[in-house]
């Protein structure tokens, strides 16, 4: 299968002045395939946010290439095609809403790519429906909660019908309730076949993904299925990362009751394990 996003030996450094450069990414090499749900994790300053900005050509690599569906992000003429393929939801819910009315903000991207009005209405309706914000469509954005604003931002990206959405720490400004709302939307979209890339330092969020890429010092240090990655507890701790809270709890229980599996990364699995063992106990 042809990858949706392909990074080849990508290096990038921020220029402070003519002499000094701060290298942020070094020889990053990976591919993301259609329909994947990928989490990129790393501690603060590891380069994960810079990496996410390479995925739709906001930043272009100093060395190496980023290919989106065969388009090189360095090619200025293909920027529009690239951004229609890969959309981004940013961290701060307030800083990405442009319009004074919810539905007009969702339409902003569509206006930019010159979609005819009738189709625009239909797409806005659909997008608001997916994120369950239709009842709020005529509201001004400052009357919404953080989670609701973030869902509006998602709708704005969704309306452009991208093939992939990058969530650049999109939940880090939200309370746990707002985070849950956004995670549900992400899961739902992935189930419908959308490629999801989430950049996060919440491990419970990364555990939702199918594949995890761990970044440290601008390099990929681990890349694999979520369950495999979270087995390497000690390596992760050395990278100032930890396994999800449920995994930690499962391990503590496992240490006292060996039959309790420690290979647990999601809350639902934890509950199932308890239910399973208590049934065995009864019988």
């Amino acid at each position, binding site marked *: 299968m042809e990858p949706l996003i392909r990074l080849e030996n990508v290096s990038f450094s921020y220029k402070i002045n003519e002499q000094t450069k701060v290298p942020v990414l070094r020889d990053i090499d990976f591919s993301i395939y259609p329909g994947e749900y990928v989490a990129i994790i790393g501690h603060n300053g590891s380069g994960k946010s810079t990496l996410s900005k390479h995925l739709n050509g906001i930043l272009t690599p100093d060395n190496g290439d980023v290919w989106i569906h065969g388009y090189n992000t360095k090619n200025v003429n293909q920027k529009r095609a690239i951004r229609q393929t890969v959309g981004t939801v940013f961290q701060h819910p307030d800083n990405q809403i*442009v319009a*004074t009315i919810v539905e*007009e903000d969702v*339409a*902003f991207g569509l206006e*930019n790519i010159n979609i005819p009005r009738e189709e*625009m209405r239909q797409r806005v309706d659909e997008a608001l429906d997916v994120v369950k914000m239709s009842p709020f469509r005529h509201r*001004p*954005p400052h009357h919404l909660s953080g989670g609701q604003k973030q869902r509006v931002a998602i709708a704005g990206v969704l309306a*452009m019908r991208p093939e992939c959405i990058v969530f650049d720490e999109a939940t880090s400004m939200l309370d746990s309730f707002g985070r849950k709302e956004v995670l549900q939307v992400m899961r739902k979209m992935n189930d419908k076949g959308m490629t999801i890339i989430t950049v996060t330092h919440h491990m419970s969020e990364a555990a939702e993904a199918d594949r995890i890429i761990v970044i440290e010092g601008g390099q990929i240090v681990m890349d694999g299925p979520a369950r495999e990655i979270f087995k390497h507890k000690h390596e992760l701790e050395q990278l100032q990362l930890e396994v999800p809270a449920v995994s930690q709890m499962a391990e503590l229980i496992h240490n006292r009751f060996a039959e309790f599996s420690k290979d647990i990364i999601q809350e639902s699995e934890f509950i199932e394990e308890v239910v399973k063992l208590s049934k065995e106990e009864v019988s």
Partner: protein
Amino acid sequence: MSSEFEISKRITIGQYVPTGSFIHRLDPRVKVFAFTILVLAIALNTSYIGNTIGLVLSLYLFWVSKIPIRYGLSGIIPAIPFIVILAVLQLLFQGQLFSHGKVYVDYGFILITSESIRLVVVSAVRFVEIIFLSSVLTLATSTTELTHSIQSLLSPLKKIKFPVHEISLITTIAIRFVPTFAIEMEKMMKAQASRGADFGTGGWWRIIQRTKETFPIIIPLFNIALSRAEDLILAMESRCYTPGGERSSYTTYQIAAKDYLALVTGLLFAILLFAYPFPI
């Protein structure tokens, strides 16, 4: 004590009063256009009768739009000092330019004639009329509608490369961020106050002290505004925004019969005020 910092609650963006009246439901472009020509006509009319008609019309518009007149009066009150000062200056110093009327007072450089009194009265009434009219416009039209209609009315200027859409986008973003910055400022004032800063304790006449008090708020606010702007640029670019590019538009307005009616009425009044030779 807490109320002193609750800026975001006090802020009304625009001052839209949704009563759903006939005026509210008019096409905003028609409203803005009719408003403009009426203001122009009033500004050019110098007769007593003409301005009485204008005053009655603007009061009538309040009644039609079902908006309590106190909203209009609250717009007049802050303007009263200016109206009074202007009237006094005109009365004392403008007489020489209007010496053709009947002379009432002629003392040194002070010359008061029937014409200069007309100027004083008419310009004061004009002020009131224009404030009433613009109040009706902004009270009965949401800010979003206003920006849309201004964009649409200015759109012919695109032909001479005037950046109509860019300007309307800038206005929209400015309006959009007013409450955000109000909340930000509130946080900042609380943070500074909790570290012992004083706000608004000096009397209003101590201008220098009160200006200094705002520095610890204004400077961080600028900083935040710039970093927010950077974020916003990224978000807009990610959604394919290209300045000057061809775009479609989501909102449309359909001109209906009632809009034509309003437009024609507005035009008739404007022509009446502008062209009819009122006796006084």
